């Protein structure tokens, strides 16, 4: 059990390779569905589910699918999974199905899924790929959920549908506000990430210097 490798994959998926704020993939559902927190979390969970399964299957078949036809093969697999999700949602959770509207079939061409398939699943073993898919999806859910909460609170004064205040700035639920909030979040997330990275690097560098000086003294 290579725990440090798995921990790496997990934190990469959520922080370093966060698909929404760092890789800037899958912007279409991000901009469209983060108007309400419930939609955002729902879409994030759907993407997580499909990502995990698609990464698993593609990693399973990675030695079988020849390199020339990998994109059509991946799209076939992903489309099947999305169709299954659509049928399940339509039957059992019609509320979510209606609020997703056209964006549910659009998950097929969501760049996150194809990107992780190309970038990770076709080179790594099954469990690693599944883990990476799951945590990338979690990163996506958290990012979209955060945006959804902020946009819904500022734009409609509610939190997951519960009306908190009457004052609302409708700008934030509009399309213009989506781009604006997205840009602000990318800036804040990257600034925080770089600051933390700098601190960690400085600490490592200081430790490294200490080791060197100890070696020299000996």
């Amino acid at each position, binding site marked *: 059990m290579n725990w440090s490798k798995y921990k790496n994959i997990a934190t990469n998926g959520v922080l370093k390779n966060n698909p929404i704020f760092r890789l800037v993939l899958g912007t279409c559902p991000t901009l469209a569905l983060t108007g309400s927190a419930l939609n955002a979390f729902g879409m994030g969970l759907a993407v997580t589910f499909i990502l995990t399964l698609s990464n698993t299957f593609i990693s399973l078949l990675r030695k079988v699918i020849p390199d020339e036809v990998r994109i059509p093969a991946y799209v076939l697999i992903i489309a099947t999974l999305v169709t299954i999700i659509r049928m399940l949602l339509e039957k059992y959770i019609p509320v979510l199905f209606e609020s997703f509207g056209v964006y549910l079939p659009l998950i097929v061409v969501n760049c996150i899924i194809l990107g992780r398939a190309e970038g990770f699943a076709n080179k790594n073993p099954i469990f690693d790929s599944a883990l990476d898919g799951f945590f990338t999806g979690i990163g996506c859910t958290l990012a979209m959920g955060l945006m959804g909460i902020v946009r819904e609170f500022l734009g409609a004064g509610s939190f997951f549908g519960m009306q908190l205040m009457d*004052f609302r*700035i*409708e*700008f934030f639920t*509009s399309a*213009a506000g989506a781009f604006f909030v997205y840009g602000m979040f990318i800036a804040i997330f990257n600034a925080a990430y770089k600051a933390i990275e700098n601190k960690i690097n400085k600490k490592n560098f200081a430790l490294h210097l200490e080791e060197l000086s100890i070696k020299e003294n000996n």
Partner: protein
Amino acid sequence: MAKIIVSDSPHIKGPRTTKGIMIDVIIALIPAFVMGCVFFGVKALFVVALACVTSVLTEFVFLLIQKKKISDILKEFDFTSLVTGMLLGLTLSSEVPFYVPILGSIFAIAVIKMLFGGTGKNIVNPAIAGRIFVFIAFQSVMISGYVLPSINAITSSNQILGGATPLTSMLNGGPNLSNLDLFLGTGVAGCIGETSKAALLLGAIYLVIKRVINWKWPILYIVTTGIMAVILDKFNLSAFLPSILSGGLFLGAIYMATDYVTTPSTDKGCYIYFTALGILTAVLRYATKIEVVSFAILLMNLVMPLLNFRPRAFGEISSWQKFKQKLSHWQSRRAK
């Protein structure tokens, strides 16, 4: 022994400063502001003052966060944020709640001006962006919140009731006030600064005399709008004056479209820019039946870098020549 002074260029400075130009603009806006207060009362004064104060405070706070010293900030204060606040206040109706000018100013200064680099680096006109922000954010308040001024129409035969602006009434096929009333602003419901075209014109003359704006560009914009409106109204020549005198065209053309940072730097570019502005305003007004001057100016601001034709360097061949060269090169390669 003569003193030797060592310094960086520029070594000769003219008398014009950003501060001076901005103070000129503020002086030019005073007639419109005064007429707005006369027409709409103390509420108008309150709205504009709130917008100004918030703009200046936002800039201060932003500069403080950037760790500048207060003495530095006060020394370098150019009145650009004050002008933005005043313009934004003048484009609002006098009945807006207090948070509208506050949030609009914060958005205009913090996002459009400071985040992009401060004075001279805004990508679009900050007052326009602030106006559009509050328009999208508080639509119910902005579309229907206009009131009639305290001085009623002098020569019009019909009053426009219900606080609809003459522009909305005219675009929806309804009656419009007489041209004199539209020009003076009596009986015209609308934003604080846009109703009295006479006051705006006074300010414009002052700015032209002081060489702050070029007289060609506002005239080009306004006349093109009128001509396009006449064409769209099936060549009805009597629609020329009402279409240019209704709505915020004068305010936008004189004070907002001529902002230095967002207009092209060459004459050729400016001709295209302001003609396009005029056509856009008239066409969008015809299509959407609402006041679109701010949206047209925003669109053209974003497109402006494409129109920044730079003059040819000495010895450089024109772009047409470059194209012909590439074409002959490509053809000779194909012949091989």
